[in-house]
Structures are given as C-alpha cells and as structure tokens.
C-alpha cells in the first residue's frame, strides 16, 4: 500500500512539474483569438491554392516585412515544388490548436492540419501571428502532437 501511494504521489508531482516547466502553453477554446485564427486560415488557404494554380502569392501587408521578403516568388515555387513532389497538391486545411509563448502571450502559434493529394498523412501548417495581427512565421512540416 505504501509503495503504491508513493508512486501515485510521485506521478502527480511529475505531472505538476511538467505543467510548470513549459516555455509554451496551449490555449483553451475560450482563450483563442478567433480573428487571428481566421487570418491564419485564410492566408494559408489562399497561399497554397495560389501556388497550386501555378502562380505565386503576392503579399499585401498581411505579413511582416521579413516574412514577405523570405517568401519570394522563387522561394515559393521551390517550396511548393518540393511539397507537391513528395505529398501531392494541396487539398484543404483544418484548424487544430493555438499555442502561445509564456514570455510573449500576444504572439499566437496557430497549428493547422493540411490535407494533400498523394498522402494519407496530414501535414502541419504552422502560422505565427504577432501582436499586430500580422503573419510573422509560416512553416509546413510533418504533424506531431507535441509542439516542437
């Protein structure tokens, strides 16, 4: 009985410790900013659909300057070429969750699951929206449940 009690309390302590130590935390449904999610979803969908049609996406102030400069026309073509070769063309996007940095709570990391034609696996489309409501980060990577 004593050993099992000790194990139980150790388990609870470890869980509490794990809750305290994170640099990022997941937002509950009440805490999420629907406007930011909509901005992120809209951008991601338009971005990939534009690339799918063979054109390149033109930024019009929805992203930060460094972000827009990073995703030049050539870069966009290169990225989409790699994605479509491996996973097929973009199909759709589905909101998954929102995280925020403990230090910068106005910046939201919004995670979507993207569906592509050639694979049954959904990929993560990650959009970072800063405190101004602009896109400050944009990734595509294999989906993992833990935030990496």
């Amino acid at each position, binding site marked *: 009985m004593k050993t099992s009690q000790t194990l139980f309390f150790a388990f609870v302590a470890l869980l509490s410790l794990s809750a305290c130590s994170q640099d990022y935390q997941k937002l509950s449904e009440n805490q999420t900013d629907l406007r930011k999610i909509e901005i992120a979803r809209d951008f991601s969908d338009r971005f990939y659909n534009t690339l799918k049609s063979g054109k390149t996406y033109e930024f019009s102030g929805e992203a930060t300057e460094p972000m827009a400069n990073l995703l030049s026309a050539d870069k966009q073509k290169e990225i989409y070429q790699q994605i479509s070769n491996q996973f097929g063309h973009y199909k759709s996007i589905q909101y998954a969750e929102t995280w925020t940095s403990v230090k910068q709570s106005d910046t939201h990391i919004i995670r979507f699951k993207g569906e592509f034609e050639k694979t049954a*696996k959904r990929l993560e489309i990650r959009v970072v929206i800063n405190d101004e409501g602009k896109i400050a980060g944009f990734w595509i990577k294999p989906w*993992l449940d*833990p935030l990496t």
Partner: protein
Amino acid sequence: MIISLVLNPYNRLAGIRAIFLGLIIHIVLTSISFYSGTHINSNLFFKLASDTPFWYFLAEMSLHASLNILGLIVTGYLLSRTQFRLIDIIGTALFSRAPLVLLPAARLIPAFKSFYVTSPVIYILILIFIVSVIWSITLLYNAFKISCNPKSKFTNIGFIAAMLLSEGISQFIIYQILP
C-alpha cells in the same frame, strides 16, 4: 503465480481462444491508438501524431503484427523438430501485443496528449513505452517457445533474428509504400 501468469499465460491460453482474444486486443489497441494519436508500428520507437485516418492505423498495426507472426512461423519451421499448429502461434503472438496498449491509453490523459517537446511528459511516455515493449516481447518469446517448442541451441538467436527482420520489412513497407 500472478507474475508468471502475466509473463507467460500460454500454459493455459492458446488456439482459437487466443486468436479470439488477440483480435479483440488488436482492435482495441488500434482504436485507442487512433483516438490518442499514437503510432505503435515498431518495437523500437513510437510516433505521437493524430495525422492519419483510422484505416492507416489499422493497416500499419496489422502489418507490424502480421510480419512479427510470419517471422516467428518461419523460425518455428526452421528450429522446431515437431509439428505445431498455426492457430497456436498466431493466437498467442496476437495476444502478446496486449501490453502495447499502455502507451496509447496513457495518451488519453489530456496532459499527455498535447505538450511542448521539452516537457518531462516525454520521458514518462518513453518509460511507459519501454516497459510495454519489454513486456510484450517477453510474452512473444514465451508464445514462440510454447507454440513451436523449438529445441535448437539457436532458439534465442532465431527469435531475435525474426524480430529484427520483420521489424525492418514492416518499417520499409510502412514508410516507403503506404501513402
């Protein structure tokens, strides 16, 4: 007595009954894995991702189980001096996957579902995985010994070789052939 039953129930359980229980375990394991987003398609690693539909989880787990069983059947034919029944090795090997349910079941706890990668939660999950795999492989080894009754000095090597080979083939199919 309980420990010996937990590590080797096959003195009392084999044949059709084991196949029936093994199939139930397989469906339960696949379902819980799907709902918790835990891919256990290997004895060496796991993936935490709710990224594929149910049929994909079923396919990869069935593939992994089938290749393990096939490896043991082939090894049994090579090392056993007497005939054995396929339903015994299939049933007991399927049943041996029961401990693998520990990790996906743990992932149903919200704190273990979604976390930042540096959280200690990952170490707890790794520990659970190691315990469940060791338990499962112990059961599998006992299943192999009881069902095939190998009497060769190469029994242990044969078992390890069968596991490694089936592991390699299943990983190749899952990551190179499945969409």
